[in-house]
């Protein structure tokens, strides 16, 4: 299954929130939708979920207009919240039947997920008696219980302890393994790097970078070297302004010309006491900052 968001425009009043946003997400893969606060991610997700229509553009599944009666979407909103005063089991079943399940299947699915996330003991408790992390696990069930084709997770890892984060990772991998489209929106880049095959970065309503994460990294200009050495002072003195020190103690050397790469590496190994030298590969975090900090 392929989900395609094509040239979406959306304005609220005079403010244009989305400007020709397009991206493609594939089944069996995770897609990362990135952007700074207020960039338009949530608006894009809401249009995708048909909460309100786009001014222009379309949402396609396998090349055809998305049919919301057929394609099921599961959503974990960034702003978490269910009914605090209601019994957990009751509201989970309610949200499942709202999404079109029959009562019997809903009960079965909710019990399955409570068990899967280790929450069965809270089944008949009120939501507000739970800790924040546990409430979040309950909320995750509302996104998954009706076995959706598209799973949208907005900041799924925030507020989870490492053990629960691990559990969620397993669940996400399981969903991807089932061939579903998993759409991530997060500021925690390490998780995006771990899961997502492709990404789109939205900045002030526009997609500024999109594609396969691996390709993006490979295509990044390879004009910097990372050097680990016992004698950084000598290198810094010799390379002057083009050399800077990283936080972890390693050195970063900016090349004047990409074609100098081999020569500089050779020179470093021959003249200095070098433990390691490699071409700098930016982390997603670096890429994100580079593409989004310009247009503030």
């Amino acid at each position, binding site marked *: 299954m392929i989900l395609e968001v094509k040239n979406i425009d959306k304005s609220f009043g005079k403010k244009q929130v989305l400007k020709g946003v397009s991206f493609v997400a594939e089944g069996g893969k995770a897609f990362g939708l990135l952007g700074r606060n207020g960039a338009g991610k949530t608006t894009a997700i809401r249009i995708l979920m048909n909460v309100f229509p786009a001014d222009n553009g379309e949402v396609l599944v396998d090349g055809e207009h998305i049919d919301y009666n057929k394609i099921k979407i599961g959503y974990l909103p960034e702003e*978490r*919240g269910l009914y605090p005063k209601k019994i957990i089991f009751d509201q989970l079943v309610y949200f499942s039947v709202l999404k079109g399940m029959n009562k019997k299947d809903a009960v079965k699915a909710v019990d399955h997920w409570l068990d899967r996330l280790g929450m069965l003991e809270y089944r008949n408790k009120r939501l507000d008696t739970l800790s924040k992390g546990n409430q979040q696990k309950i909320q995750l069930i509302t996104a998954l219980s009706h076995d959706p084709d598209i799973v949208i997770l907005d900041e799924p890892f925030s507020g989870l302890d490492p053990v629960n984060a691990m559990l969620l990772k397993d669940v996400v991998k399981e969903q991807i393994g089932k061939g579903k489209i998993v759409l991530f929106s997060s500021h925690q880049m390490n998780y995006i790097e771990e899961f997502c095959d492709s990404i789109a970065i939205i900045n002030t309503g526009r997609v500024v970078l999109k594609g396969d994460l691996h390709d993006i990294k490979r295509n990044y200009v390879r004009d910097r070297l990372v050097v680990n050495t016992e004698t950084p002072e000598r290198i810094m003195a010799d390379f002057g302004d083009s050399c800077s020190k990283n936080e972890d103690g390693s050195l970063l050397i900016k090349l004047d010309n990409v074609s100098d790469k081999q020569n500089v590496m050779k020179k470093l190994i021959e003249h200095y006491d070098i433990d390691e030298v490699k071409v700098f590969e930016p982390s997603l975090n670096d890429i994100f900052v580079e593409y989004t900090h310009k247009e503030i």
Partner: protein
Amino acid sequence: MKQFGRIFQFELKGYLKNKIFVGITIIMIVAIAVAMFIPNIISLIGSGSSDEQKDRPIMLIHSESPELSLLVEQYFEEAFADYDIKITDGTVDDVKEQIVSGKVECAFVLSSASSYTYYVNNLSMYDVNVGIANTVLQEVYRANAMIQSGLTPEQAGEIMSVQIDGVTTALGKDQMKNYLYTYIMIFALYMVILLYGQMVATNVATEKSSRAMELLVTSAKPTNMMFGKVLASCLAGFLQLVAIFGSALLLYNINKNAWSGNVLIGSIFNIPVVLFIYLLIFFVLGFLIYAFLYGAIGSTASKLEDINTAVMPITFLFIIAFFVVIFSMTSGNVDNVVMKICSYIPFTSPMAMFTRIAMSTVPWYEIVISISLLIGSVVGIGILAAKIYRVGVLLYGNRPRLGTIIKSVFKKS
């Protein structure tokens, strides 16, 4: 439709499981039960003490003339059956002393057949002895005067006791009889709409402030949400009224004999069936139109604290409608111009038209026009409310102006 049914069911269950909702209903029923059994309880206590006639309070009669004392005593014994009437020969000071000490409850000190002083220790708010005494003494005076001018005591008695035989037939509605139950129904309507309207608004705002809305808007259609919520609250309110009035009716019938002397209470439970049907129609329609408004307003508030100020305009509108109706009722003219206009305006017609039907004679076509206008407005406002809801629920931060929201609703559609 399926989704609407599920929302309706969930919301209704929410009301019926709500401890406050159930608590209020039970308290109301218990209060009514106690009130309905009061005559039985009183007569039970009363019958226990009826053997002890000696305990009747003492009323003294004092006069310079023994004949006058005797004559007055004779009349007073009839008029004040609750008192033990005694003639005293002591001085006025003795009489006062006996009253203050509590031996005697009250005393009439007569200086002539037409003037007296009434002594009592603490004058109760409900003391009607003076009024009764005035009537009795007037009677005595007139009878005496007639006898003195030559009539026989029998003739005088006949003249004094003549009965006027008159019959009143109301060809339209008997306002005196209808007043009480119309008042009770209007008041019930008023209470239920205000109470449930607030509940709907709070309900929507709670979902919004707890962010459950984020999930709801992506799971259900706003029209289904709005109609499900409002109709569930309508049914809950209706069930509550049925429970309260039903048990009142049941308890009244159980205690019917004890209440037989009370025309007022009797009139409440003798509502004509047709009027009751009108009550149902106006209750449901009036409830819906306000509940939709309250729901729409609730969706524009981001925080629960904002609700009270947000719903104020609607509450004012409703209170004004209520007062117009109540003033017209008490003034006795429910067919005045204001009421006539109000009975066609959808926001006021549930109360105004119902009152006119109950207390006056309204041509059938006026009723049809009023109800049709109301039904049309309920549907229109329902749809508009669902649209406001759709826009309103996703707006956080400062409460937007209603005008801005309505504008954006129409822009979209």
